[in-house]
């Protein structure tokens, strides 16, 4: 685990390459040709099945089309240009802003919960010493489970019948049938995948059922954070913590002044990767609620999918493409610093 060489920023630290390739232009060109022979298979597949579809998405977001009457950039008879109408249609519809708000809830809550729970678990387990790997495995295990299966599995836990769903059964035993209103906050337990209340934010209603969907995703994804934090902790000298203790630091202070600064990089990685993951959310919502009830749990990725794949006869694919472009722009904007660190520079990395 001490292989710091495999963390992202170092991955681009590529050696200078073939020494023979450099000196003279003629040889250089020959070197290029050899290198491109190696790259070609992957580059061709990537160009054909990623770059070109991405270009098509961007182009097609300015046309009206459906999957039954698709837009083809190379065939002008399929062109029904509508300018930026798809964008204005998306941005002026209530369902877009509803989905955008739910996605925002995911973008804020999911990374915080993943990072927080993974940090807590990693630090606790780190103290266990010899038995740590056994306990750690429990938290890494759900990472192998597909989100579709995770959604299905959690639906059982959430089942509203207290004879089937464990959560409601436990609440029944504890006689906790919670229902209260606290200012803008309304909470009622029981129908975990339909309506468990809301928080009125003034500009929008935060439906708490979204939190019930985020929880399984956190459960499935926290293992990533545990692995990342464990890697960071493994390079933390135990004496550092010991000496802090001897100097009279309390546990909370050790965490704040020793652990957190040391884990800066794993924290950033876990947080950013969770943000990226949060915007992509589709599987859990599709399996657990299909965006319902009404559109209470619809996120952007699901809305986009419905525009293109559910309303086949209506020419809504262009709107779906426009939403996809907007999502991509937001994500590149949010994750640009991270992208730069992936690209190398790599200087922050030798600092440790």
């Amino acid at each position, binding site marked *: *685990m001490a292989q710091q060489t*495999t*963390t*992202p920023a170092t*991955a*681009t630290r590529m050696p200078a*390459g*073939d020494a*023979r*390739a450099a000196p003279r232009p003629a040889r250089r060109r020959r070197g*290029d040709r050899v*290198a*491109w022979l*190696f790259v070609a*298979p*992957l580059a061709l*597949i*990537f160009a*054909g*099945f*990623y770059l070109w579809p991405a270009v098509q998405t961007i182009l*097609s977001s300015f046309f009206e089309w459906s*999957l039954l009457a*698709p*837009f*083809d950039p190379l065939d002008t008879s399929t062109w029904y240009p509508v300018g930026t109408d798809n964008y204005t249609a998306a941005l002026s519809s209530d369902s877009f802003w509803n989905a955008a708000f739910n996605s925002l809830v995911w973008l804020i809550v999911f990374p915080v919960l993943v990072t927080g729970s993974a940090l807590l678990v990693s630090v*606790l387990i780190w103290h266990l010493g010899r038995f740590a790997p056994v*306990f750690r*495995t*429990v938290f890494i295990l*759900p990472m192998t*489970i*597909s989100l*579709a*299966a995770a959604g*299905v*599995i959690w639906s059982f836990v959430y089942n509203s019948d207290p*004879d*089937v769903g*464990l959560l409601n059964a436990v609440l029944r035993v504890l006689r906790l049938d919670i229902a209260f209103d606290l200012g803008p906050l309304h909470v009622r337990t029981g129908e975990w995948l339909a309506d468990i209340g809301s928080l009125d934010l003034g500009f929008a209603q935060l439906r708490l059922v979204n939190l019930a969907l985020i929880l399984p995703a956190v*459960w499935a994804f926290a*293992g*990533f954070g545990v692995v990342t934090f464990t890697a960071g902790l493994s390079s933390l000298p135990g004496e550092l913590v*010991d000496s802090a*203790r001897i100097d009279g630091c309390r546990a909370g202070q050790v965490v704040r002044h020793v652990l957190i600064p040391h884990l800066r990089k794993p924290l950033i*990685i876990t947080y950013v990767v969770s943000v*990226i*993951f949060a915007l*992509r959310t589709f599987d859990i919502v*599709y*399996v657990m609620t299909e965006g319902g009830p009404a559109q209470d749990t619809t996120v952007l*990725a699901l809305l*986009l999918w419905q525009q293109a794949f559910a309303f086949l006869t209506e020419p809504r694919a262009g709107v779906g493409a426009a939403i*996809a472009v907007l*999502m*991509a722009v937001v994500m*590149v904007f949010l994750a640009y610093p*991270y*992208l730069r660190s992936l*690209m190398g520079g790599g200087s922050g990395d030798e600092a440790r």
Partner: protein
Amino acid sequence: MRRGKGSAILLYGSVTALCLLWLVPVATAVMIAAVPIGQTRNGWWHAGFGDLTFDNLVEAWREALSGYAVNSFVIAVGSVVLTVIAGALASYAFARLRFAGKRVLYLLLISTMIVPVQIILIPLLPWLRTLGLSTGDLQFVGIILVHTAFGAGWAIFMMASFFADVPEELLEAARIDGARHGDILRRIVLPLALPGIASFAIIDFVFVWNDLLLGLSLLDREHQPLTVGLANLQSPHLAQENLVAAGSIIAVLPPLVLFAVLNRYYVRGLFAGGVKG
């Protein structure tokens, strides 16, 4: 580290409690899959040893999921093989050679780890139709190519970093002996980077196996993977929790077995700082 006995007990106690909490969903699915539907209706937690049965698993497999499982294997194995081969060749060039356009291509590949997959999703279906990859078993070829394209950035990101760790002196010595690039890759780089390649292969397998969105959107019913089959089983109107639970166990099993057997490689690969959930 000095610590009182009390706090040690507290520590072990809290971690154990957290672990048990974390296992509740899995235990729920296992139990519902292992007891008759009638028992599930009356609380699976009341079930005794005598109630345990394999009937649900057998029925879920026979009635619903065996076809989907075969599809999942074809798609996952095909995608992993193609991605590893094409990715290893390209990673050699990225890690060891200089060429025009390297930086731009690397940027494009790496950005797939950040840009949501939705950016390619919608035009893929008409595009695969244009290419003649939208009918019959050719759909497998189509989705394997899409998975490979989508995994390409990840493949380069991981494998090139492992390839870059191979000591330059070894390659230099081979070059002086007159070895060509193909030989160097096959005889020196690949054997030394094998653990890294294995890590990538496992993670890619788990990722492709767990895909729902592409399988749901691009394939017809006869060619969809297990995740879609499971989502279809999970209809609120069908009272068949036992089959759904059994299905989720079946769907989870292959990645879980891989994880159990090759845990070391899997964790190491994850640690390489992933983006693909």
